[in-house]
């Protein structure tokens, strides 16, 4: 591809999934009107969900899902060896995602609960960066395809790949939404990284923080505000724990 006198190379990508719902990978096939142009930017070397072709010579690996079995660890490590750029793709990959809720209960209990006396192998859920080095994180449950498109275009052209550093409230206010706090709900929008176009609060459901913490958040002021407004601390705990994205900030109290 030549544009403006510069030469751009297609991205040699591969997409892999681990413990997850595959909803993020599915976004590759969404935003149909720009799909043909989108795939023009990619040289898909391996992508089991949509293609039977499989080659090992990719530069960039999109890794979806969290890690919860020993074979997954091995598979991830071999992907890391091959990939020049490894992308943690989606909330499960970036933070562990909803799967991490399992970690609240001892593993054996979970196995017995679901599989009775036929045990299956399973480990506590880990995020991708617990196992291998991650070069780029694209959070979201699911990832926002528009943002994925933008990032892919940036990678192809060599322009800046950036996620917003500010929180969801900015986008929420731009949509003229009524603040969930005014509707009596705890919302994680003010501590969560924007980029989703405030999709949840625009649908009048509180932000559960799938995109993880915004840059340099004021977590103490946030928990203080929940207390001051007399909102349920149980609810706060449930929300902060939902995607495991605020692990680093949680204290025994929250």
């Amino acid at each position, binding site marked *: 591809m030549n544009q403006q006198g510069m030469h751009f190379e297609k991205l040699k990508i591969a997409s892999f999934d681990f413990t997850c*719902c595959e909803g993020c990978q599915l976004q590759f096939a969404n935003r149909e009107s720009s799909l043909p142009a989108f795939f023009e930017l990619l040289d898909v070397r391996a992508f089991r969900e949509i293609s039977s072709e499989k080659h090992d010579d990719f530069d960039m690996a999109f890794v979806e899902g969290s890690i919860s079995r020993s074979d997954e660890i091995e598979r991830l490590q071999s992907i890391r060896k091959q990939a020049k750029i490894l992308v943690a793709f989606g909330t499960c990959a970036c933070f562990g995602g909803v799967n991490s809720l399992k970690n609240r209960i001892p593993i054996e209990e979970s196995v017995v609960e679901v599989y009775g006396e036929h045990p299956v192998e399973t480990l506590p859920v880990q995020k991708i960066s617990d196992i291998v080095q991650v070069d780029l994180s694209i959070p979201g449950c699911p990832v926002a395809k528009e943002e994925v498109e933008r990032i892919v275009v940036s990678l192809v052209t060599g322009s800046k790949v950036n996620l917003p550093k500010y929180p969801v409230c900015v986008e929420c206010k731009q949509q003229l939404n009524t603040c969930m706090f005014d509707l009596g709900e705890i919302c994680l929008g003010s501590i969560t990284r924007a980029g989703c176009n405030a999709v949840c609060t625009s649908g009048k459901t509180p932000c559960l923080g799938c995109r993880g913490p915004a840059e340099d958040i004021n977590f103490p002021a946030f928990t203080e505000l929940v207390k001051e407004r007399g909102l349920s601390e149980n609810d706060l705990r449930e929300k902060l724990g939902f995607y495991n994205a605020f692990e680093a900030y949680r204290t025994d109290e929250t």
Partner: protein
Amino acid sequence: MKLDCSIDIHHLTRVEGHGNIHIRVEQGQLVEAKWAVVETPRFFEVMVKGMSAERVPFLTSRICGICSISHALASIRSLERAMQVTPPPAAEAVRLLAMHGETLQSHALHLFFLAAPDFAGTPSVLPLMQSHPELVKAGLDLKELGNEISTVTTGRCTHPVSLVVGGLSKAPDKDRLKFLLDMIGERKSALGLACDFFASLAIPQFERETEFISLHNGVSYPFIGGDLRSTDGVLRDENDYLLMTNEYLAEPSTSKFTRCSRESSAAGALARFNNNSAFLHPEARKAAEHLGLRPVCHNPFMCNIAQLVECVHILNDAETLIAKLIDMDLREIRTQFTPKAGCATGAVEAPRGILYHYMETDNEGRVVKADCIIPTTQNNANIHYDLGALARQALEEGKNDREIEKLATMLVRSYDPCISCSVH
């Protein structure tokens, strides 16, 4: 020379999730034919424990990236039934429309991205973008329409945001509904093109007598709730889902298998069609005729065709539904409720078949026990037994190992399995 072969497909491509096919033939005799699901288990039934009812649909929708709306609605239905909450009629209409969006999107994805390459002999849809641009465009147009319907009704196409216990957190915007109506009008031609393409394909001839199970309500083509009915004549109440499924473990699969009156049964578009073809929109019935689909059809490859017929139904039904919604007062969309203890099943027809969520709540509306039975789980046994029968028939027809392998993969894909879902 008698055929000796061993087909070992590790992580079948172009399906959602991880599944393996093993077929072993010695001296022209089938020794083994096996379908194994090797997906990593996620333990949603454990995760959901202790969670407040209002949060549950947001969690369970994450069971599946394709049919998240079905999962959300199955949970919502079980919780609403458990706590005796009646959603307002407008909310029910919007939910049905949301199901239509999801089904259309899912069917289009399956038909064009996952199944069509088999018939065209390409590894994926990507080469088809060059060789069959109109066909791919038709597929994308339909898929986009499905996604747009989901977005207008639930706020987002994957993982809905406004489906909540009690109704909807936000009503769809009427201007956007009107826009959908125009979009449907425009995209009917894409559907026609798809029907002509699939009518021209040589669908493999293979039959194995099967018990087909789906929802049934006796008045309309079923999507949300109703009785459980099988083509073998079983009819049960929604709450008796366990008697309809009889889950059992089939190692090494991490997904369970089910059965009803026979060794296996099937759910999905074909099952819905076989049980409810009378309730299809007349246009869809016409399309079925054109595509050579008649109840009760026992050829699993015809699943693809049944999905296409359902797309016709959906486009036409969505039109009526949207027109109705535009005339409705959409302010009353959420019933406030007080949490209470209870238990119930919520069954919906997900794109791949009947989906059950069973939930028990405590006084605060927190889930104390949950059970989810996924359509693909209900198809696993059928896929497994079909594989054997298919291999046997192919051997009789003198097919070689490559042909058998191709047929086997096509067979599994026709079921449109959603594996990570089945190992939730």
